[in-house]
C-alpha cells in the first residue's frame, strides 16, 4: 500500500493556495482574450483588457489577482489504495491553508461565529474540505480560493419535475440578472442539476473546475449549456455590469439522476477571477 505523509500534503496545499491567488489559468485568460474580440461595448472591451493586465501584474509581482483571496475550498480525491501517515489529514490541509495564506501575504477573510461576533480567525482557516474516495493510489488536491462577491449571488432551487428544462433556464437567467454587476462578471456559471439539495450545490461548485468553455460530453447537456450562455449574454449586463455582450464566459453543467418528486438546481457563480490550482501526489 502506497503511503503519503501528511507533511507533504501540508506543503502542497500551502503552495497551491499561493499559486491559485497569483496565477490566472491559461483557459481563463484565453476566454477573456476571446471575449475582447467579440465584446461590442467599448467600455466592456476596456474592462476586459484591464482584467488581462491585472493578471499580468499579479503573476509578475506575486500579488493576489484580487484582494479577496477567498475562502479556501480544498477538494481531495483520495485513491482507495493510499495510506495517509503522520497524523490527521484534515488538520494537515488546514495547516497548509494557514501557511499558504501567511507566507503568500494573502488576505485572511474568514470569521468565526458568523451570526454574532464575526471574529477574524487571522489565518483564513478553517478551509472548506470536500473529500472523495476514488480508485487508484494517488491523491489529487485542488485548491479553489472562492471570493464572496460571486459566492453571495449563488442559489439553490428545488424545482418541480414539471418545471423541466425551461424552468432551469429561467432560474439561471433570473439569478444572473438579479446579481447584475455584483458578482464581478464576466462569470463562469456552475450548474448542478439533479441528485439532492446538498449534492446539487457540490456538483455546481465542481463544475467550475472544468476548463473554461469545455462543454459537457453529453450532447443534450452541452446544448443546455449553450442555450443558457446565449440567454445570459442577451441580458446586456456586460463586464462588471457596465453594459455589454459578455456577461458570462461559459456555463458548465453537471447532471445526476434524481428522485421522482425532485428537480434540484444549484447555481454557483464564479467571478472573472476564476482561481484554482491542482496537483497529484
Amino acid at each position, binding site marked *: 500500500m502506497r503511503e503519503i505523509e501528511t507533511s507533504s500534503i501540508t506543503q502542497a496545499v500551502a503552495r497551491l493556495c499561493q499559486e491559485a491567488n497569483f496565477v490566472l489559468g491559461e483557459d481563463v485568460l484565453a476566454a477573456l482574450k476571446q471575449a475582447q474580440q467579440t465584446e461590442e*461595448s467599448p467600455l466592456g472591451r476596456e474592462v476586459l483588457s484591464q482584467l488581462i493586465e491585472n493578471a499580468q501584474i499579479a503573476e509578475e509581482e506575486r500579488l*493576489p489577482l484580487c484582494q479577496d483571496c477567498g475562502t479556501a475550498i480544498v477538494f481531495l480525491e483520495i485513491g482507495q489504495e493510499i495510506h495517509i501517515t503522520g497524523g490527521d489529514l484534515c488538520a494537515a490541509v488546514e495547516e497548509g491553508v494557514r501557511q499558504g495564506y501567511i507566507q503568500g501575504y494573502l488576505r485572511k477573510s474568514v470569521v468565526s461565529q458568523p451570526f454574532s461576533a464575526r471574529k477574524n480567525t487571522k489565518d483564513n482557516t478553517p478551509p472548506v474540505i470536500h473529500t472523495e474516495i476514488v480508485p487508484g493510489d494517488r491523491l489529487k488536491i485542488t485548491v479553489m480560493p472562492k471570493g464572496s462577491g460571486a459566492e453571495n449571488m449563488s442559489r439553490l432551487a428545488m424545482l418541480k419535475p414539471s418545471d423541466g428544462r425551461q424552468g432551469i433556464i429561467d432560474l439561471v437567467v433570473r439569478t444572473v440578472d438579479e446579481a447584475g454587476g455584483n458578482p464581478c462578471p464576466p462569470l463562469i456559471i456552475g450548474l448542478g442539476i439533479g441528485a439532492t439539495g446538498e449534492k446539487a450545490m457540490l456538483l455546481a461548485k465542481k463544475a467550475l473546475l472544468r476548463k473554461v468553455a469545455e462543454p459537457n460530453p453529453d450532447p443534450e447537456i452541452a446544448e443546455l449549456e449553450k442555450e443558457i450562455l446565449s440567454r445570459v449574454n442577451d441580458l*446586456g449586463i456586460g463586464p462588471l455590469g457596465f453594459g455589454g455582450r459578455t456577461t458570462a464566459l461559459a456555463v458548465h453543467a453537471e447532471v445526476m439522476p434524481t428522485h421522482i418528486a425532485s428537480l434540484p438546481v444549484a447555481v454557483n457563480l464564479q467571478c472573472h477571477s476564476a482561481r484554482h490550482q491542482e496537483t497529484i501526489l
Partner: protein
Amino acid sequence: MIKNIISPIEAEIIEKLTVGTRVLISGVIYTARDAAHQRLSQALDRGDKLPFDLKGQTLYYMGPSPAREGMIIGSAGSTTSSRMDIYTPRLIAAGIRAMIGKGNRSQQVREAIKKHKAVYLATIGGAGALLHKCIKQVEVIAYEDLGAEAILRLTVESFPAIVANDIYEEDLFEQGKAKYQRGRK
C-alpha cells in the same frame, strides 16, 4: 473623455460628474467596508466622536491584502457596494460626498445622492493588483482590530473609476444594460 479629479471632491465638481464620465482620482480617500460601516453608524447613533471628519470625504469600499516587504499595501480592489446600502444614506447625510465601489446601489442610496449632492463611482471589481499601483500612501486611522476591515487613509494617484450614480438620478448599470440587452426579457 477622462476627467482628472481631486479628492476630497469640491461641491461644485459634483454637478459635472454625470453617469458614464470616466475619472482619474488623486488625493485622499478613506477605506471602509462592512464592519467599519457598522461601527461608524453606531458611533453616529451614540453621538461619539468619529475617527475622521466625514465632511466632503470619499469612501472606498475596500479591504486590502497584506503588504509584502517593500510594499505599502497588497491588492486593493473594491468589494460589493450594495452591502453598505443600509448605512450609506446616513453617512451621506453626515457629510460623505463620494463613494467608490463595485455593483449597483439601492433606491435609497440613489435618493440620498440626489438630495445631498453626492456621487457614486464604480471601479473595476477584482482588478486588485492593477489598482494597487495607484496607491501611494497608507495610514491606519481607526479600528485596527478589524484587520483587513480597518479604516485606512489612502493617498491615491490617477485612480480609475466611472460615474455610476449622479445627482440627476441616472444609473450606469441600467443605462449599460438597456443598450446591450437583446430579445426577450
